[in-house]
């Protein structure tokens, strides 16, 4: 059996696929937690992209960028979960269709 070597380009395709999956999830799913997980998937696709490009370009800036994204995404996740917690306490649901007081 012949195995093709895995190059940085394969990672870029994988990242694009992950990003598309995440974006699709954001469009289609209704549970806020799952929406949120889809967004995290998109962010991780970005990280994969950055690290692959970093490898392709042969320097480290992309990895530094990815590290910052990981840390900031964690902070954002914590804030997001806090907001969802406050929302859930008042509303007892996490369905995005119930986010409906503000209309016009």
């Amino acid at each position, binding site marked *: 059996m012949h195995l093709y070597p895995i190059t940085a380009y394969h990672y870029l395709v994988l990242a694009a696929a992950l990003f598309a999956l995440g974006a699709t999830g954001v469009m289609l799913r209704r549970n806020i937690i799952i929406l949120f997980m889809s967004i995290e998937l998109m962010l991780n696709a970005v990280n994969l992209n950055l690290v692959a490009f970093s490898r392709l370009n042969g320097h480290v800036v992309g990895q530094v960028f990815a*590290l910052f994204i*990981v*840390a900031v995404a*964690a*902070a954002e*996740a*914590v804030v997001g*979960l*806090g907001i969802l*917690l406050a929302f859930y306490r008042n509303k007892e649901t996490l369905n995005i269709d119930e986010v409906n007081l503000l209309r016009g």
Partner: protein
Amino acid sequence: MHDWVPILIMLGFATGFAAFNIGASKLIGPKHPTPEKLAPYECGMPPVGDARERHPVKFYLVAMIFLLFDIEVAFLYPWAMALRELRWVGFMQLIVFFAILLSGYVYVWRKGVLDWGRDRD
């Protein structure tokens, strides 16, 4: 073979550290067994039951705060790798970074998020 020596040393240290701590607490630690403590997972929740039951909000808060402090440590690894080049300036930068994290910790602590004794949320 020569390259693997540091890893062997690290493995030895890790095993020794774990063995020492378990042994020391066996030998000199106080023992007051209660049913909760003897349960397979001592995590504050019944180990068997419906997984969909609602948990006190404390769990979420602690999990969130753990997530934050856990991830921030990620900055330590590249810093440690570059410390020799960064010298004292780099050291001071990290001190400032941790001072900021620490003030966040003080805030969380004084807000009572880490306090499991009193029941307030």
